[in-house]
């Protein structure tokens, strides 16, 4: 596989969220608003890139019996570093993400890519794979968050999109849809996304 393909594959055709169904938990949690979704996508991409490179560099020295622990320690270290740096230099953003930075550790995509790719490949392809999967995850997050914020709060990135005059309380007919704010809607949206993706890419459909 060439590097370009490694990068492109996870964006759509082999997307970690919609095809591998990994990282659903955090996709539900951070997609109420667009802004935390963007920052989360960026943080996951950075952590995934670095952890893939580090694990790939030391892949031949890792004792097989404790390799999961080694992976966890590396990922945890990176997450704590990201958290600390954000707190020092981007305090507002770190407040936005609050608990979710910790959630990066438990993101199955990161462990999944380390196990499936970084342990068996050279650092450069591993980096590209990490970044590609991070972005693939980010695309889903942003799409879901876009719809959830637009219909749930009537805003995008905190700016009012649906005109205030249309709301019932101001004499109009429109009301924000409360279901979009709640976690089930994220699952429904991801489900719709999978549906769309499968009808576009027919080879994803399992043979009976």
């Amino acid at each position: 596989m060439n590097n370009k393909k490694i990068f492109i594959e996870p964006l759509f055709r082999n997307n970690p969220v919609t095809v591998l169904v990994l990282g659903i938990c955090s996709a539900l949690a951070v997609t109420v608003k667009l802004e935390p979704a963007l920052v989360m996508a960026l943080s996951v991409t950075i952590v995934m890139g670095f952890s893939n490179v580090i694990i790939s560099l030391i892949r031949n020295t890792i004792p097989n019996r404790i390799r999961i622990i080694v992976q966890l320690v590396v990922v945890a270290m990176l997450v704590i570093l990201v958290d600390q740096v954000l707190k020092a230099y981007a305090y507002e953003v770190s407040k936005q993400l609050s608990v979710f930075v910790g959630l990066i550790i438990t993101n199955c995509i990161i462990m999944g890519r380390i196990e499936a790719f970084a342990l068996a490949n050279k650092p450069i392809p591993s980096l590209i794979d990490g970044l590609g999967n991070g972005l693939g995850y980010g695309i889903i997050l942003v799409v879901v968050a876009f719809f959830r914020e637009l219909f749930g709060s009537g805003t995008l990135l905190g700016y009012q999109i649906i005109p205030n005059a249309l709301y019932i309380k101001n004499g109009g007919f429109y009301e924000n849809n409360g279901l979009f704010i709640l976690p089930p809607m994220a699952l429904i949206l991801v489900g719709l996304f999978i549906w769309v993706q499968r009808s576009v890419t027919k080879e994803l459909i399992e043979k009976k």
Partner: protein
Amino acid sequence: MDTNKNLYTILYATGMVVIVAVVLAFAASLLKERQQRNVEIERKQLILRSVHLGAEASSVKDKDSYIEQEYARYITDSSISESGKDFVIYISSGGGKQQSGEPASGRYYIIPLRGVGLWGPVWGYISLADDFNSVYGATFDHKSETPGLGAEISTNAFAKQFENKKIFDAQGDYVSIQVVKGGAKEGNDHQVDAISGGTITSKAVEEMLYKNIKEYMNFFAANLRASKERERMQIEREAAEAVAAEAAAKAAADSVAKVEQQLRYRAYLQRQKEQEQRDSSQNN
């Protein structure tokens, strides 16, 4: 090299943990100062915002020193000791423009609030006018409430609702401010709307307000007594002044009357004189 030997595994694990620990400790001590400064600036900005000051924080170039300056200019930290406990209260010597109303002047008392939200702590500041009843402004923040739900308590839209609410009812009983699910009643001075989907956080805010403000009851009472006393003395002084002024006015009026009487008398004499002259000329 055989990476599956026990000795190798143990050494590898030990070495890895030591390296990671060193890296993290190094990063933490390197960034600690900046992080603490961020937290401090954040706290000061929240306090300023509760009295609608520091509004230009997002547009000035050096936000940190702007906040420090504004804080030093307006806010005085003071603490109250009461039955072995210390309470902090911040006194602001001025206020900015309210979101919904007039610009203001005067003294405001800012009470720090601490509470427990759904996922972690919530906190905030509420400022009261010097009648210790009407709310001038409020700000809230949280550690880890859900974005879009509980986290909405930190928005201006939520904080704005508290402006001009009252913490005492018409009978003078302490009622604090309720955060009402399904919407506050129009015109109710003690209710604000809860956050939809953020019921537990909203309840946390309500409880936090009730508990924290309650601690200051004695302070309010003492201050109100003092200000009533000042008011009473002011009224007495004004009354005394009024009496004096009345006396002075009376005296002035008396003297005016006297002058008028004299003038009238003089005019009468004049007329009499003229009459006499006319009489004598007719006789001639």
